[in-house]
């Protein structure tokens, strides 16, 4: 009996240690994010050194008058917004991906794989090529607003499909793929009829780039994240329970339909906002949650923040890479994330095959 008591104490202590370890991993990821962010700030095509960059930020906050105007513009209007936007977009996409994967019970679910990005591109294309937009939206925001509305609609469509009786997780992914192809064809059609200048604009939009970042967009995306994250966190235990199947979760008192609906609502807002501001950024929403899950497991109290941090980290590092691959040129970040993401995607599919 005393042996059992020993063992019981070991298990309780072991669990508490596990929790501390997970909190430590979240902390480490935050530090890594900060590191990547600083790196992202000091690297760029213009010859502003690391020391100059840091002091430009310092002076910009404490004594703006002393700032060299050319350095000030580079740091305050280019690098800082880009670097912050990279973190925010990475966090938003990865949180959306993590929630989608749990709620749809599908490891391959993400805003990119289920057509949310493609829908946003179609919305943007309508604005760019045909000048179609939501009435009353100012011309600065019309592309983003269109992208948002289309992305949001695509998630609602998926949600409607998911609610149909007998629609399993596999069906949903197939629907998502069908959606991607259909939307891409429509975008192709618009590209075909587009004038040369709008074609160029559209192609760049589709690539996904941080170059569109500005302080207004940062403000909007920050507010969205701050508003959504508390709701995600407050349903983290319910989502953990949901991982063990609908019946089980419901029998534990989880209103599964409600949890799923509210989560997909959050996903729509996060994914649509992120894509609307920077265009198509593939695979962050897929890869971020997977890396986080490998690091930290599926207790959603830790998985959700870890996914956000991993997404932000990968995005920030991709931003650094996008400036370093070709010296003096900033490659659109969507290209970089896809190049990194595709091999990871394949690895995940192969790993899943083995597990079955």
């Amino acid at each position: 009996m005393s042996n059992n008591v020993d063992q019981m104490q070991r298990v309780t202590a072991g669990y508490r240690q596990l929790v501390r370890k997970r909190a430590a991993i979240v902390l480490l990821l935050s530090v890594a994010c900060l590191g990547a962010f600083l790196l992202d700030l000091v690297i760029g095509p213009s010859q502003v050194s690391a020391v100059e960059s840091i002091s430009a930020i310092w002076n910009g906050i404490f004594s703006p008058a002393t700032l060299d105007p050319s350095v000030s513009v580079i740091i305050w209007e280019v690098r800082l917004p880009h670097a912050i936007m990279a973190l925010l977009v990475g966090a938003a996409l990865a949180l959306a991906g993590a929630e989608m994967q749990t709620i749809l019970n599908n490891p391959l679910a993400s805003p990119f794989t289920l057509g949310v990005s493609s829908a946003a591109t179609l919305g943007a294309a309508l604005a760019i090529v045909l000048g179609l937009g939501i009435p009353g939206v100012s011309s600065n925001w019309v592309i983003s607003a269109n992208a948002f509305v289309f992305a949001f609609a695509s998630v609602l469509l998926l949600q409607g499909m998911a609610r149909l009786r007998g629609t399993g997780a596999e069906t949903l992914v197939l629907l998502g793929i069908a959606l991607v192809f259909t939307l891409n064809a429509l975008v192709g059609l618009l590209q075909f009829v587009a004038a040369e200048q709008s074609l160029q604009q559209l192609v760049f939009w589709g690539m996904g780039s941080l170059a569109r970042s500005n302080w207004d967009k940062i403000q909007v995306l920050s507010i969205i994240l701050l508003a959504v994250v508390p709701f995600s966190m407050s349903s983290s235990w319910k989502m953990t329970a949901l991982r063990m199947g609908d019946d089980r979760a419901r029998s534990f008192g989880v209103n599964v339909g409600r949890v799923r609906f509210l989560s997909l609502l959050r996903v729509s807002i996060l994914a649509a906002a992120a894509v609307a501001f920077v265009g198509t950024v593939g695979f962050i929403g897929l890869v971020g949650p997977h890396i986080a899950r490998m690091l930290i497991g599926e207790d959603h109290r830790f998985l959700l923040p870890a996914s956000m941090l991993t997404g932000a980290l990968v995005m920030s590092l991709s931003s650094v890479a996008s400036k370093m691959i070709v010296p003096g040129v900033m490659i659109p970040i969507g290209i970089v994330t896809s190049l990194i993401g595709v091999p990871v995607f394949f690895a995940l599919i192969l790993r899943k095959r083995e597990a079955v």
Partner: protein
Amino acid sequence: MSDSSKVISRDSVLKVEGISASYGKKSIIDNLTLTPIRPGIVTALVGPNAAGKSTLLRSIAGLIPITGKLTLGDSDLARMSHVERAKHITFMPQSMPQGISLSVFEVILSALKASPMGFSRSDEELHDHVTKVLDRIGIVDIGLRPLNELSGGQRQMVSLAQVVARDPHVLLLDEPTSALDLKHQVKVMSLVHSLAQEGRAVVVVLHDLSLASRWAENVVVIDGGKVVAEGSPESAITPKLLADVYGVEARIERCGAGRINVIVDSAIS
């Protein structure tokens, strides 16, 4: 242990009256009524494949829409919210899904944290509670192991631990012994029996009739969505019933202590 007994007292009886359930247009159970299910005893739900056993259990658990009346004590279960109902009734599905990156401890803790349970405990108390349940089920040694690395039988024990941890008045267990070896079958059934003796109503779907007659005081035989026999194992399970319902030629042997053994000779073609 639980304060939720304010509404549902420990001697509350579960009544299933005239319930029907269907998947789409296909009727699975039709106007089914059971003798009131008393707490303190184990009720075994047996019957051939596709008889509607799991559907009946899921109906009682509130997982599928039904018509008819379900009451626990004086309370109409249909009028309860998800959270309220889950305080009194917990359902254990047949299988625990694979590919989940959680430790056994977390799996059980999540069953407690998923919804308020009518009593508040600090995290420390919950952790101690989880460990006690692990010990009671006899799986404290795998408490920190990842669910992914466990065998089917071990996962089934973890699944049972989730239900036991919630300490409900009514336990609905769908084939809790299907993946277990002989020793663990006996361990689980004796645990199920003692859970009932502590004053809970336990309904358990079983395929093994000998196991059902050994551990259950009450046996309900279902075929084609209807109750075909009900009562003590000795009265419910007869050679005629086995021929009618299962289509097998079988003998019933009485062993010591009033237990019966079912010996199947052949299938009736």
